[in-house]
């Protein structure tokens, strides 16, 4: 059983989800860890062309890749190029005979499914689905040079979202602090940011908030935004529309703060605070600061 893990790198090194995928590949069989190199900006054709050539020579049974935006894009097109089965956003992967058995969510998290993918297959894996064993050495990575001749698009420029630099990416964050309409206006995000900063958390938002332009679209959690599965999800002033719940209900621990005791968000919360978030959040931030300082 030959299993390939394709890894991605951020400025801080190999991405966490890539390490998770590499560990899973090792669990499943004879693992090779690969990285596409030589491009500053990912675009599918150069990467797919290089990896497809590599796969034709190396004949893996299963290719795993982290379900980041890049991983989902690359995984889908690579599977199509190879004519292999493809499953996205896996939360579990095992092998039975000539099939991969893949656990994944469907209907934006409203359904959990088990699918059987005939090998060879490409599977993108949801961040946080697999553990990185403690003390594991960083995997040895085989560089695969991107095939620049295959490129058909021309990169023009990058337009950063204001104040987004250095933030934890939402999809991979282990802690997410999300704000909703209960925060009353974009000017009140300072306290959300302060709490998120202390917790090393990514910022999320309800759709009402991104639609109103209070926060950038990329922070939207839920059906037409990101699905997140952190260890801790803190929902501030979010009522809990079904589309929002679908995107965060697989979080390990959910904390909800809302002044309406009937809010739907409390139906999925492990800890609910009924009260005024403008009083609660600063007090909570102080308490978190105290325990963080103690270490």
């Amino acid at each position: 059983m030959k299993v390939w893990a394709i890894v991605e790198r951020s400025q801080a090194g190999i991405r966490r989800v890539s390490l998770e995928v590499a560990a899973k590949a090792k669990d499943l069989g004879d693992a090779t860890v690969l990285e596409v190199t030589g491009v500053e900006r990912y675009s599918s054709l150069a990467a797919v062309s290089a990896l497809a050539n590599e796969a034709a020579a190396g004949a893996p049974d299963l290719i795993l890749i982290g379900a980041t935006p890049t991983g989902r894009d690359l995984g889908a097109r690579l599977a199509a190029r190879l004519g292999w089965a493809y499953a996205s956003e896996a939360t579990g992967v095992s092998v039975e005979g000539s099939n991969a058995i893949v656990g994944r969510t469907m209907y934006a998290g409203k359904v959990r499914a088990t699918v059987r993918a005939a090998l060879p297959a490409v599977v993108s894996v949801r961040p946080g689905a697999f553990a990185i064993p403690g003390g594991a050495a960083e995997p040895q990575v085989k560089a695969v040079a991107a095939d620049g001749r295959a490129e058909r698009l021309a990169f023009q420029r990058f337009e950063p979202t204001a104040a987004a630099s250095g933030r934890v990416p939402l999809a991979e964050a282990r802690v997410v602090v999300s704000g909703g309409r209960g925060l009353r206006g974009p000017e009140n995000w300072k306290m959300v940011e302060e709490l998120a900063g202390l917790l090393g958390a990514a910022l999320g938002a309800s759709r009402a908030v991104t639609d109103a332009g209070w926060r950038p679209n990329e922070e939207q959690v839920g059906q037409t935004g990101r699905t997140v599965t952190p260890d801790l999800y803190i929902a501030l002033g979010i009522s809990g529309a079904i589309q929002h719940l679908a995107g965060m209900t697989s979080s390990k621990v959910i904390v909800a703060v809302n002044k309406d005791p009937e809010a739907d968000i409390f139906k999925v919360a492990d800890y609910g605070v009924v009260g005024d978030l403008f009083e609660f959040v600063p007090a909570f931030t102080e308490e978190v600061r105290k325990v963080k300082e103690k270490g």
Partner: protein
Amino acid sequence: MKILVCLKQTPDSTVRVKVAADGRSVDPSGVTWAISPYDEYAVEMALERKDADPTTTVAVVTVGPARSKDALRQALAMGCDEATLVDGAAAETLEGLAVARALAKVVDEAKPDLVLCGRQASDDDQGLVGPALAELLGWPHVATVTKFAPAEAGPPGGTNGIDVWKEVEGGHEVWRASGAAVLTVQKSEKEPRYPSLPGIMKAKKKEIPEKDAGALGIEANAATLETVKMEPPPARGGGRILKDGDMKQTAAELVRLLREEAKVL
């Protein structure tokens, strides 16, 4: 410019989804059907281009059962010019790659300059069809698109290509496509428009040609992906509610619980 939007009819995102008695499909009773949300953004994005340049035409296509005609009609009522349904027995159960094959046949015939798809359908959440269609056509694709416009250097109408805004972590990348391309849409600049009354009347009268998937040479039996089980997500709830207290005490209590009980701080 000629734009083709590929869409799928899926359960409306505001409804609960029930697993059927067979434990491997969704119970269709009581389901309200709608255009999958990302596909609806794709329709809106195409129509925004048509608003800006009235020589643009927007066609829509779907691969699916007969009920999918309602989704096409909705797109026509929003302002799209024509619609095609690929149906037949084979179209009911096709997986992503086969759907992309059927769509590629339609693209070969219709010869659009640009194809838009939602980034993923809101039922299977796979996100395969857009990239797979581009692959089969031999076209480049750009994913998670939030905007496109005629290339800045080019004349109006986009004959010099288009600039495409791709949402990435921390901002947008702008990519230029000088020829035909597939875009998978994250969100349109405006919310999808509601159909106007004249739009609805016009859409009612429009002929929607049907193509049989089998006749296009698409087969359903080559499935490489099979759903073996579906279940609702584990029930949550029974959480601890803290209320009526002083917010400072509540905050301290919550920090204690998160540390000692949940062990996530």
